[in-house]
C-alpha cells in the first residue's frame, strides 16, 4: 500500500514536466476559464481608459454620435494642441484661461512633487534609519502614532493650515503644498524605509565601525548606496502622492497643480469633454509611466508600507 502511495506522486511529477510552462498540467476547461477571465479583467481595466483616450483623439462632432464610437473612424490631435497652447479657436471651451494654464500647472506639479521627494527622502531616511538601528525609548510609540495618523481626515486639519499659510503669505504658492503634503508623505516614507533598513544585514555596519567610520559616515557612505532600491521605491511613491493630491491643492491654492485645474475644467461653462480628456490623459502619463518602469521596486515597497 505504502509503495503504491509513494509511486503516485512520482508519476504525476513526470507528467508535470511535459506541461509547456513547467507548471501543473491543466485541463482544457481550466484553460478556457482562465483565458476568459483574463479577457474580462482586461476589459474591466482597459475599457474606461480606452474611452478616455478615444475621447481625447476625436472631434466634438464625432463625440456627439450615439452610440459612442468605440473604434473611431478618424483621429485628431487638435484637443491636445488646444489644451497645451490655450488656443481654443472655435472648437473648445469658453475659457482660454483654463487651457493656457495646463502647462504651468504641469510644471508646478512636477516642482512640488520633486521637492517633496528630496525633502522626504532626507528627513524620513534619517528617521527610518534611526528607528531601525538605534531604537530609543518612545520609538515604538512614534511608529504607532505614524500608523494611526492615517485616519486623520485631511479635511479635519486643513482649516488651521489655511489660517497659518494666510498669515505667512504663502497661500497659492507651491510651498503651501510642499509643507502640507508632508502630513501624509512623511509617515508613508518612514514606514517604507524603516521596513527596508530592517531587512539590510547589520554586518556591513559593524565592519565599518571597526574600520573607524563614524555613525553618520556609515549612514551616508555605506548604507545609502546599498539602500538605493528602497530609496527609489519610496521616492516613486512620494512622487505619486504629490502628483495625485487634490484636496489640499484645491483649498490652499487657486488651481496651482494639475488635479484642481482638471476639476476646475468641469465647472467652466461651455467646455468640451474632448479637451478635458486630452488634459486628463496627459495628467495620467507621468504616474503610469513611472510606476511601470519601477514596477518591481514599487510593489515591494507598497506591500511593506501597507503591512507595517
Amino acid at each position, binding site marked *: 500500500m505504502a509503495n503504491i502511495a509513494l509511486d503516485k506522486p512520482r508519476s504525476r511529477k513526470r507528467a508535470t514536466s511535459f506541461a509547456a510552462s513547467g507548471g501543473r498540467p491543466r485541463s482544457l476547461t481550466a484553460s478556457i476559464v*482562465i483565458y476568459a*477571465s*483574463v479577457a474580462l*479583467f*482586461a476589459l474591466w*481595466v482597459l*475599457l*474606461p481608459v480606452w*474611452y478616455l483616450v*478615444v*475621447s481625447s483623439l476625436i472631434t466634438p462632432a464625432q463625440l*456627439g454620435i*450615439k*452610440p*459612442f464610437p*468605440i473604434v473611431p473612424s478618424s483621429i485628431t490631435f487638435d484637443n491636445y494642441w488646444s489644451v497645451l497652447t490655450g488656443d481654443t479657436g472655435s472648437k473648445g471651451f469658453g475659457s482660454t484661461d483654463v487651457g493656457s494654464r495646463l502647462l504651468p500647472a504641469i510644471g508646478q506639479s512636477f516642482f512640488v512633487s520633486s521637492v517633496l521627494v528630496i525633502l522626504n527622502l532626507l528627513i524620513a531616511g534619517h*528617521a527610518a534609519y*534611526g*528607528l531601525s538601528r*538605534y*531604537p*530609543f525609548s518612545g*520609538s515604538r510609540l*512614534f511608529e504607532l502614532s505614524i500608523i494611526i*495618523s*492615517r*485616519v486623520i*481626515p*485631511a*479635511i*479635519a*486639519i486643513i*482649516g*488651521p493650515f*489655511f*489660517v497659518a499659510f494666510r498669515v505667512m503669505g504663502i497661500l497659492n504658492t507651491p510651498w503651501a503644498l510642499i*509643507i502640507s503634503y*508632508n*502630513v501624509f508623505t*512623511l*509617515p508613508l516614507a518612514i514606514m517604507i524605509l524603516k521596513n527596508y533598513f530592517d531587512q539590510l544585514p547589520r554586518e556591513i555596519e559593524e565592519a565599518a565601525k571597526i574600520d573607524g567610520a563614524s555613525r553618520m559616515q556609515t549612514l551616508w557612505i555605506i548604507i545609502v548606496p546599498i539602500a538605493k532600491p528602497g530609496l527609489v521605491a519610496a521616492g516613486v511613491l512620494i512622487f505619486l502622492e504629490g*502628483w*495625485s493630491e*487634490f*484636496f489640499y491643492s484645491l483649498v490652499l491654492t487657486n488651481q496651482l497643480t494639475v*488635479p484642481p485645474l*482638471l476639476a476646475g475644467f*468641469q465647472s467652466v461653462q461651455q467646455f468640451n469633454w474632448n479637451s*478635458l480628456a486630452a488634459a*486628463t490623459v496627459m*495628467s495620467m502619463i507621468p*504616474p*503610469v509611466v513611472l510606476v511601470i518602469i519601477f*514596477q518591481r521596486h514599487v*510593489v*515591494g515597497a*507598497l*506591500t511593506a508600507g*501597507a*503591512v507595517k
Partner: protein
Amino acid sequence: MFGLKLTAPAGILLAALLLVPTVLTVLYSVHDVPANGRSLGPFVGLENYTIVLSSNVFWRSAWVTSLFSIGFVIFSTLIGLAMAILLNQRFVGRGLARAMLIIPWATPWLVIGILWKWYADGSVGGLNAILLKLGIISDYHDFLSDPNSALALTVVAAVWRQASFAGILLLAGLQTLPDDLNEAASLDGANLWQRFTNITIPWLRPALITVTVLNIIYAFLQFDVIFAMTQGGPGDATQVLSILIYRQLFGVTQIGLGSALAVILGVIALVGGLLTVKILYRAERTHG
C-alpha cells in the same frame, strides 16, 4: 540617543503639521468660531456636537457614507482577491496583465472621478454605448443624475481603483505561497475549493486583514472621486460625510460645526479601523 537625534526632525515636523492642527480642530469644535476664522469665538462646550448629532442632514450623510463604505470595502477586497488569484496563474501575457493591474492604482483619485463621470455620462458616455450594444439597456441613461444609481456608480469608480490596490498587495502575498503546499494538497485529493479555503485564504489572511482595514479607512475618507463625479448630488444622494464637512467649512463657513463633524469623521475612521483589526484577528485566532 543617536536614534532620537536622527528621528527628531521628522518628529518635530509631524508634531507641528499633524498634532497642532488636530488639536486646533478639536478646539474649534467646542467654540462658536466666527466665519473669518481669526479667533476662536465664545466657548460653547459640546453644543456643536449636539447640533450635529440631532440633525437629519448628518444622519442622512452618515447613512450614505455607510452604504458607500460597505460597497467599496466588499467589492474592492473581493475583486482584488479574484484578480490576484487570476494573475497568479500561468498564462500567455501574464507580465502584461500584471502591468495592467497597476494602471488604475497609479491613476490619481481625482482623475478616476473625472474619467468615470464622463464614462457614465448620459449623452457622450462610453458605458451607455457598451450597455446598449450588449442589449442590457434600450436607451441612453444618465446614471449620475439619477439618485438611484449615482451612489452605485461612485462606488464602481472608486472600486475600479481600489480593487487594483488590493490586487497588487494580495498578489504579492500569493507569490510567497510555496507551490508544494498546493501540490501536496491536490495529491491528497483536495479539490479546488478545498485548496482555496484551506490553503490560499489562511495564507493570505494577514494581507487580507491589512487590505480590509486600509479599504475601510479609504472608504470613510473618500472625497476626490465623489467631488469630481457628483459633488454630493443629485440632491444629497451621494453626500458622504467628507463632502458634507467640505460644504460646512467652505460653502457656508460654519467652522465650529464643520470641525465637530470632522472630529466625528476621524473618530469613526479610527474606531472602524480598530474594530476591523480586532474582529479579523479574533477570527484568525479561532481559525487557529
